[in-house]
């Protein structure tokens, strides 16, 4: 295979004579087979251009930075204006939530910013100089400023975390929760000494009362940064996974109606609220058809 690839690369860059190549190929049918297999890979990679073009159109969408998010423009901006509540010292819990497909920013009284992703509900309270944020459902990004002097605790259900200054991403599922530390650090309060530390680039997974800390995948970090810019990032995950991620943002869900399609794996960046890019890419490169049913559900089938 390497030998055949060497010939192909040589022909491609023009460094080998066609006669020498023909002689090599004619010498053994195994050469011809290996060459055809490499040529097939060579041609197939070229077909990936479709994906590249889709990614281009997705990344050319203006990236929101935090300030733009506050100023407005689009759903996220409106949510940010409404949701930009500076909490007054109060003993009662404050709450904030987002509907499916909505994003919103909340500024807490110590300057901490909380970005709420789709279908998320949080509450918080500051008392006696210490604050607690409860993540009841969904996903949030948290930016704790350097000057925040109060102790801040994030409660993700069965376990809580103490957050230092830094950037965090927390997501809660039914039975599990995860805290990804993008910068700064968090500690896990427990009776054990020293307390476990979650450093930048690590993720703490909570299952029941058990917490495990491990280095985060690059993809997990990209994903945590991506959603705040309205992007979904994939790296060869199965279609089922990709569709499940999209559905978090969609009122009308996508369903994979053909079990053979689960084998499709996808990579790339997509705008999160608009499934159109995904559907175009699926059609162009995998021949997958999308049909909207009467109930509004989008069904995916092989043509």
């Amino acid at each position, binding site marked *: *295979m*390497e030998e*055949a*690839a*060497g010939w*192909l*690369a*040589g*022909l*491609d*860059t*023009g*460094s080998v004579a*066609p006669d020498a*190549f023909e002689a090599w190929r004619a010498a*053994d*049918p*195994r050469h*011809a*087979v*290996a*060459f*055809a*297999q*490499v*040529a*097939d*890979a*060579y*041609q*197939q*990679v*070229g*077909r*990936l*251009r479709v*994906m*590249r073009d889709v990614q281009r159109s997705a990344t050319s969408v203006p990236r929101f930075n935090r300030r733009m998010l506050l100023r407005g423009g689009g759903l996220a901006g409106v949510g940010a204006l409404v949701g930009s509540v500076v909490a007054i010292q109060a003993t009662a819990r404050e709450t904030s939530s987002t509907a499916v497909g909505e994003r919103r920013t909340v500024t807490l009284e110590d300057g901490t910013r909380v970005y709420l992703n789709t279908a998320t509900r949080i509450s918080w309270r500051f008392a006696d100089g210490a604050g607690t944020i409860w993540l009841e459902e969904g996903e949030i990004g948290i930016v704790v400023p350097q000057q925040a002097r109060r102790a801040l605790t994030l409660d993700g259900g069965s376990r809580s975390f103490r957050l230092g200054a830094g950037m965090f991403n927390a997501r809660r599922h039914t039975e599990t929760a995860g805290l990804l530390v993008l910068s700064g650090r968090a500690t896990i309060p427990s009776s054990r000494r020293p307390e476990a530390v979650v450093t930048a680039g690590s993720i703490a997974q909570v299952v029941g009362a058990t917490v495990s800390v491990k280095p985060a995948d690059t993809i997990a970090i990209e994903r945590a940064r991506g959603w705040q810019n309205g992007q979904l990032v994939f*790296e*060869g995950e*199965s279609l089922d996974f990709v569709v499940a991620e999209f559905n978090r943002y969609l009122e009308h869900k996508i369903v994979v109606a053909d079990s*053979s399609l*689960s*084998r*499709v*794996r*996808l*990579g790339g960046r997509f705008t999160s609220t608009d499934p159109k890019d995904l559907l175009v890419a699926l059609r162009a*490169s*995998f*021949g997958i058809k999308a049909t909207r049913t009467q109930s509004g559900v989008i069904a995916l089938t*092989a043509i």
Partner: protein
Amino acid sequence: MAWLRDVDRWFIDEVLPHRAVFRRHATRLVSPGEAEDLVQEAYARAIDASHHREIANARGFVLTIIRNLAFERHRRAAIVRIEHLADLGALEIADAAPDQFAVLSGTIELGRLMALLDMLPQQQRAVVKLRRIEGMPPKDIAVRLGLSISTVEKHLAKGLAMLASALQETPTPDEGVTVSTLWRRHQHQRN
């Protein structure tokens, strides 16, 4: 592509899309370590077929070659594993029409290819992407990456070889195989 003969095009379009089926059948006929070799041997016979344009069913044609080669190997072998003998009988029913899976596997490979491409070592991946996805001429790639043309050529060759051998593997639905694992396995089989 100018370097492909008519028989190569036929082989790429009609034979290779069924590679998963061939591999699966070969695995039932011989030991797992021997399966890929059996498939490759069958390919070598198939690509030598001078009458390829008259072959109506390339899939059935190659399946028959695989079966005959397996019989031959078993006759020669000192020890034949009993479970392979059992399957030889079952294989008499050679299916003529490509099934749903075979048709799909040809199309869906693109998704796998993308995942595999992303798993190539950095330099090889960069060169393959620039050449094939961006369509950049080799000499421009050399300038852009600060490499000599012959190094670009080497990276392209290595990258394509890794992709081509990875593509011959049957994908498992849930577990992703990394290129480096496949490459090691490939090297191991050769030695």
